[in-house]
C-alpha cells in the first residue's frame, strides 16, 4: 500500500541545510492503521507531505499503490492524490466559496466517484444534517473538522492521511471526532496514517511509530 524506503529530506534555510528526515523507512499495508508521534519540529508533517506527493524526497523511494511517487510527473501525482488519498489537515482547508455539501462532495466529484447515497450517509454520520446549505465559516471548529474528514472519505480513498486532525479541538470534541474517524475508516477498509501528539489517539491504532530528530524509532504507545 504505502512504503517509504530510506527517505532523506533536507530543507535549505538561511542558516544552511536543515536535515529534517534521515533514512526513514516504513511500510503500511492495506486496511492497516498507524500513528506517528514525536516532538514539535521532528519532521512528522514533512513525512506526511512526502507520502502524499505534496513534497518530494531528496533521496529514497516512496511507493504508493505500486507507483513510485517521486518519479511521477505533477499531473500524475495530482491524479494519485485525487483518486487514492484522503487528506485531513490540522487547519481543515475547507473551500470558503462552497457550501457544506459541495465541500464534502468536492474531491469525490473531482475523482468522478461522487455517490449521493454515500455522501448523504457521511453527512448523517458526521452530524452535519441540516447544515448542508451553510458555508464553512458558519460552522463551529468541530463541525469544520468533521466536514474535512467527510471530504477526505467521500471518494472512498485507499489511504487516509491525517495531520493532527484534532489538534485544533478541545479534548471532548477531539475524542468524539477521532472515534468517528476510526469507525468510518473501519467501515471503508482504508489504510490510515495519523500524525498526533496524543497517546489517546495513538492507542486504538494497529501500530505506533515515533520520530525524533528526523529518525524513526519504534515505540510502544
Amino acid at each position, binding site marked *: 500500500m504505502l512504503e517509504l524506503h530510506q527517505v532523506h529530506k533536507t530543507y535549505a534555510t538561511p542558516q544552511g541545510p536543515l536535515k529534517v528526515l534521515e533514512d526513514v523507512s516504513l511500510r503500511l499495508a492495506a486496511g492497516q492503521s498507524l500513528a506517528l508521534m514525536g516532538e514539535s519540529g521532528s519532521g512528522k508533517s514533512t513525512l506526511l507531505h512526502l507520502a502524499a506527493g*505534496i513534497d518530494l524526497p531528496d533521496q529514497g523511494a516512496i511507493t504508493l499503490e505500486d507507483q513510485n511517487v517521486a518519479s511521477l510527473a505533477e499531473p500524475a501525482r495530482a491524479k494519485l492524490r*485525487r*483518486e487514492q488519498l484522503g*487528506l485531513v*489537515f490540522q487547519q481543515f482547508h475547507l473551500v470558503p466559496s462552497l457550501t457544506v455539501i459541495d465541500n464534502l462532495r468536492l474531491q469525490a466529484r473531482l475523482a468522478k466517484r461522487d455517490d449521493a447515497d454515500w455522501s448523504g450517509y457521511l453527512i448523517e454520520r458526521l452530524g452535519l444534517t441540516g447544515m448542508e446549505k451553510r458555508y464553512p465559516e458558519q460552522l463551529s471548529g468541530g463541525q469544520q473538522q468533521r466536514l474535512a474528514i467527510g471530504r477526505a472519505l467521500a471518494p472512498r480513498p485507499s489511504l487516509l492521511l491525517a495531520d493532527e486532525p484534532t489538534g485544533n479541538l478541545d479534548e471532548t470534541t477531539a475524542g468524539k471526532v477521532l472515534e468517528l474517524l476510526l469507525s468510518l475508516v473501519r467501515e471503508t477498509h482504508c489504510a490510515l496514517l495519523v500524525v498526533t501528539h496524543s497517546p489517546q489517539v495513538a492507542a486504538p491504532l494497529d501500530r505506533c511509530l515515533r520520530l525524533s530528530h528526523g529518525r524513526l524509532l519504534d515505540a510502544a504507545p
Partner: protein
Amino acid sequence: MTRVLSTLLSHYRRHPGQLVMLLLGLWVASALWSGIQAINATARDSYARADALFDTQLDQLERRDGAPLTRGEYYALRQAGLPVSPMLEGEVVTQAGTRLTLIGIDPLTLSSDNAMAQANTSASLSDFLTPPWQTRAAPDALAALGVARENASGATPTLADGNTLPPLVLAPALPPDTLIMDISAAARLLESGDEITRIVAAPWALAEAPSGFILTRATTLASPGQLTESFHLNLTALGLLAWVVGLFIVQAALGLALEQRLGMLRTLRVLGVSGRSLVVALCLELILLGLIGALAGIASGVWLARVLLPDVAATLGSLYGAGVGQELNLPWHYWVGGLAVSLGGLLLAGSGVLWRAARLNMLELGQMQAWRGGYRRQLTLMSISGALALSVALALYGWLRFQPPGDGLVAGFGLIAALLLASALWLPPFLALVLKVLTHLAQRRPLIHWAMADMQLQLPRLSLAMMALLIALATNLGVGSMVGGFRLTFLDWLDQRLVAPLYLNAPSEQYADIDVWLADRPEVFERLLTRRSDATLQATITPDGSRALGTPIELYGITPGESLTPHWPLLAIQQDRSSAWAAFSDGAIFVNEQLATAENLAPGDRLTLSAPGANETLTIAAIYPDYGNPRGQVLMASPQLAARFNAPPSSMGLVLNDNANVDAMRAALRERFDLGSDALSDQAEIKRIATEIFERTFTITRALNVLTLAVAALALFASLLAQARNRRQQLAPLWALGVPRAQLAQLNLAQLGGAALVTGLLAVPLGIAITWGLVAIINVAAFGWRLPLYLFPWEMAITLATAVGVALLAAALPTLRFWRASPRALLAEEANQ
C-alpha cells in the same frame, strides 16, 4: 501618535509594491486631471482675452454697397456727431513664418472701457500715439516674434517683409496672436493707404445705422468661447473619467494595505490605542501619501499639457478659428484646485478604509460571515442606486426631447454620465446573478462549479475594477465610433462636394475672362463657379410667424449643373430632389444644418437677407449638411447670388472630360492668365489638407481615450495583485485535493477572462448608447449638426479582445506567482494565519 503612525507606515517597508501602486494611482489620477485642467485653463484664458478684445464688445458699421471703408467716411460720421472709432486690421508675417493679426486703433475715440484701449499697459498715451509709436503684444506672442522675454520691452522685431515693428510693450491681456498699435503706424506697416477695415462703436452707442451703412450688433457675433465650450466640456469629461478610474486604483491599493494590516490594527487596539487615534493616524497617512502623489501628479499633468497643447491649439484653430497660446498660462487657483481635487479624491477613496478601521472588531469572530451578508446588502444598494441613475438618465432624455435643438449640451453630457453610472452600478449585481446561475448549472462539473462559486467570493474585491473597466471600455467604444463615424461622414461629404479634379483660386476680377476662355475649350466639361459674400439674416418667416434677427451669415453660390447636383447631399427637402434643385436654380435657397438647427428652420420657410446693396426675401428649398463649419450658411445658385447680392466670384471648379489632360490644362491656364503657383489646386491636395486637419482634431481625444483604458487596466491589475496572496491560499487546498497546478492556473485565467468578457459584452451596447448620445445630442448641441450613427463591428471585436486581454494580462502575474510558489509552502502559509 507618531509612534502609531510610524508603526502603520512600517507596513510599506515590507510591501513597497503596495506603496508604489497607491502612489501610482494617485499620480495617474491627478496627472490626467490636472493636465486637462491646465489645457482648459490656458485655452480659456486665450479666449477670454480674444473675447475681451473686440468681436463681442463692439458694434460694427459696414457700407451698404459693400465698398471698402475709407478715412473720409469715418471723418464724415464723426462730424455728424456719432461716437464711432476707426479700426484697421491686417495680417503680418513674422520672420519665423507665423501669421499675427495686426490691429490699428485710435485710442482717443475708442470707448475707454474696451480691452484694446487699455490692454493693461502703463505706458503713456502720447508714446502710443506718436512716432516711433508702440506695439502692444502679449508675452506669449514673443516666441513668434523671436524676442526673448527679458529684453522684450522696447525691442523692435523685424518682419518677414523687412519692415520693423514699433518698440514692443507687453500687454498680458491681449490674445497670443494679436498685435495692437496706433492706426497710423498700422497703416504704414500694412500699406493700406486711405482704407480702413471697420468703423466700430461701443455697444448700443448708435441707436440705428446711419444711412448708407449696415449695423451689426456686438451680441450677434459669435465668440470663440461659446463654440469651443463643448470641446472643453469633452476634455473635462474625459479628465473626470480618468480621475475616477485613477481613484479606483487608489481604492484597491488602500483596501489591500488595510486588509493586510488588520492584524496590526487589532494588536494596536488590544495594546490600548483608541479607535479614534487609529483613524486619525490613518488619516494622517492618507494625507501624507496624498500630498506626495498629488504634487507628482500635478507636475506631470503640467508636463502632459505642455506636450498636448500644440495639438489642442491646432485643433481649436482649425475647427473654430480660435487662437490659443502655445504656452501654458496657469492661474493660481489651478494649483490649489488640483491639489484639493487630488486630496479630496483620496479621502473619498479612503473613506471606506477609515470606516472599516473605525469599526474594527477586536475579536475576529464571524468575519467572513458578516462580510458575506454585508456584500449582499451592498449589491442591493448598488441595484437601487443604478435604478436611480437610470431614472435620472431617462428624465434628462425626456427633458431633452422637448428642448429646442442647439441647447442642452450640459444635459447631454449629464445624460451620458448618468447612463454610464447606472451601468457601472448594475454591473456587480448583474455579474453576481450570472455567477449564481452558472454555479447552479455547473453542479455536475466540480471544477467549474468551484470556479463559479469562487468567483462569487472574489467579486466584492474585483467589482470596483470591473466597473472601471466597463466605463473605460464603453467610453472608448463610444468615442471611437463617434470619431470613426465622423471620419467616414466627413470624407464622404468631402467626396460629394469636391467633384472637380481642379480648383481655381484667382483674383476675383479675372474670373470673367477666364470663364470666357474656358467656355471655348473642348476638354472642359463644366465650370463650377462659386461666389461668396457676407450677409445678415434680418428675419425669418415661418408658419409660426416672422421673427426679427440680426445674425451674420455667409452667402455661398454654387453652379447647380450636371456634375454637382446628383451628389450634393441634402438632409431635408420639400418634395423630391429634382424639384428642390429646380427651385434652387430659380432663386430658392438651401440653408446649412447649423443655421436650420439654430433658427429652427424647415424647407418652405422664408428668410430675409440683407447685404451691402441688397435686401431679399427668399424661400428655403432644402437643408444640407455642412460639417465642420461653425457658421450659418445660405446656399444659392451662383448666377442668382451675383444678380441679387452682387457677390464676387471666389473659386471655380473645373470638371474635365474623361480623356482630358489635367496637367496640360493647368499649364495652359497659368500661362494664359499669368496665375500664381497656388492659384490652381488639385482635388486630391485639398482633400489631403482637409483630412489632415481633421485627423489632428481627434488626436487628443484618442490619446486620452487610450490613457483611460490603460488606467482601467492598471486598476484591474492593482485589485488582482491585492488579492493575489489570498487567492493563492485558496488554491492551495484544491491542489492538495489533487487538482493539477496547470489546471488551477488555467481556471484562474478563465475566471477573470470570462468576467472581463461579460463586462466587455455589456460595454458594447453601452458604447453604442454613448455614441448615439454624442452624435445625436451633444454634437447637435455643440455644433448644430447631427452625425449619422455608424457602428464598427471590427472595432467592437477589438474592444472585446482588449477587455479580455487586459484582464488576462492583469491576472497573469498573480497566476505566475502561484505557479512558481510551491503549494506546499502555501499550505504552510495559511497555517500561519
